[in-house]
Each structure stands twice: as C-alpha cells, then as structure tokens.
C-alpha cells in the first residue's frame, strides 16, 4: 500500500531572511549547510516565538498535533546541529502553502497581501511603483541557491 500524501502546511508569516551564517570559526573546513524547511521555521516561530502550545500551533498550520510535534522536534534537531557544529542554516523548501499571497515592493521595502484573490496586483499600494515581486522569492531550490551565490 502506498502511504498517504503529505498534507500541505500553512505558513502565516514567511521568514524575513533566507538563512544564517556562522562567524569566527576556528577551522576553515567546509561544512555542509543545514536546510531548515519553511514548515520547520514556522513551527519554531509558533511554538517558541509566539509561545503557543503544540495543539494551537497545529491548528494554525493545518496539521494534526502529532505531526506538528514531529516537525517541531526535527526543527530543533536541525537548529542544534547547526549551532553545535557551526554550520550555515538555509531556510527553504518544504510542503507548504501561504496563508494569503504576499508581495514585496522593491522600492519602498514594504510587504503587502492581496485581499481580493481574483484581481491581480500590479503595483505597490504604498508608493505605486510597478517594481514588485511575490514573496515566494526565498523559496529557491538548492541548485538555484548555489547559482545565486
């Protein structure tokens, strides 16, 4: 029998940065990066930053309580691994969808959502510039990330 497909996790607040870099390393050996998935970031944000319990956090992310706990413990394991062995953290990927479509403006640096899903947003509601992009920008795959560097 094939397993059930993974249910998509809801992300209410996308991260403002796409990762963390360690500094002051004693040895210069290259260490593999830790890839923190967006759903794991969201679990950390809800449980440790918003101080919600797992039941509440699981309802917000639209998964079951045991699933949330699994995502959360995996996230902590990854963070600990990065911290202890001095690895770089990259936040990306994951089985996720966004709460509402978020956009960012490249001129004034603001973020905004689209309340009317039928209409497409073409300009920033604040400075009216057309230079906007969807916030899925940080959702690069590993290959694209390396190309960017």
């Amino acid at each position, binding site marked *: 029998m094939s397993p059930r497909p993974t249910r998509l996790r809801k992300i209410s*607040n996308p991260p403002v940065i796409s990762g963390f870099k360690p500094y002051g390393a004693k040895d210069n050996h290259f260490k593999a990066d830790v890839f923190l998935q967006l759903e794991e970031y969201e679990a950390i944000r809800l449980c440790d930053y918003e101080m919600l319990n797992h039941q509440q956090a699981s309802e917000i992310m639209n998964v079951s309580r045991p699933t949330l706990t699994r995502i959360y413990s995996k996230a902590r394991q990854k963070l600990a691994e990065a911290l202890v062995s001095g690895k770089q953290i990259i936040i990306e990927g994951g089985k996720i969808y966004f709460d509402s479509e978020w956009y960012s403006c490249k001129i004034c640096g603001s973020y905004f959502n689209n309340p009317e899903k039928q209409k497409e947003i073409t300009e920033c509601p604040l400075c009216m510039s057309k230079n906007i992009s969807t916030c899925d920008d940080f959702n690069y795959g590993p290959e694209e990330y390396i190309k960017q560097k």
Partner: protein
Amino acid sequence: MKVAITSTGNTLDSKLDQRFGRCIYFLIYDTDTKGMEFIPNPNKDAQEGAGPASVQIVASRNVKKIISGEFGIKIKSLLDSLKIQMIVIKDPEKNVGEIIKMLNQ
C-alpha cells in the same frame, strides 16, 4: 478610500507603531478628501484580544488598507475575510507623515 495607519503619537511626526493591536493611535486617512483623524486605541494595554477589538474599530470606519509593522496571527484571517489589505513596513523610523506622502504620490 480610507487607510488606517498605526501611530505612536497624534502628530504627523510620530513614528509608525510596529504593533497593530496594541498601537497607541490609529490614524485614519482618507485619500480622496485628504482628511485625517487620530483615534486613541482603547486596547493598547489589553491583556488579550487586542487584535480583534482593534480590527473592529478600524473596520467600523470602512478602511480598505491597514499599514502597520506587524500583524498577529488572530488578525490575518479576520482581515482576509473582511477584504482589508495589510501593508507591512519593517522600518520603525518611518513617521506617519512620510507614509501619507507616499500614499499621495
């Protein structure tokens, strides 16, 4: 169209308040008539439920956009259903006068 801006004071020089539910003042700005109104937020010291109560205040003035530094998790779904657009500015140094200038461009 009316826009709500969270403000730390009741003048145009005051900075944008980085919280939505517990901001000190709401500035309701009408982009058509250029009229503005400062409303003191009664929920600024509320223990909980400040977000939804604040949404009620601004929604009763028929605003279409809210500009703030951050929106709590309880508010997002509420504003989605009311079709109010959220605009997040992560710059605590910006004052409300500058934001109004940007809106008038």
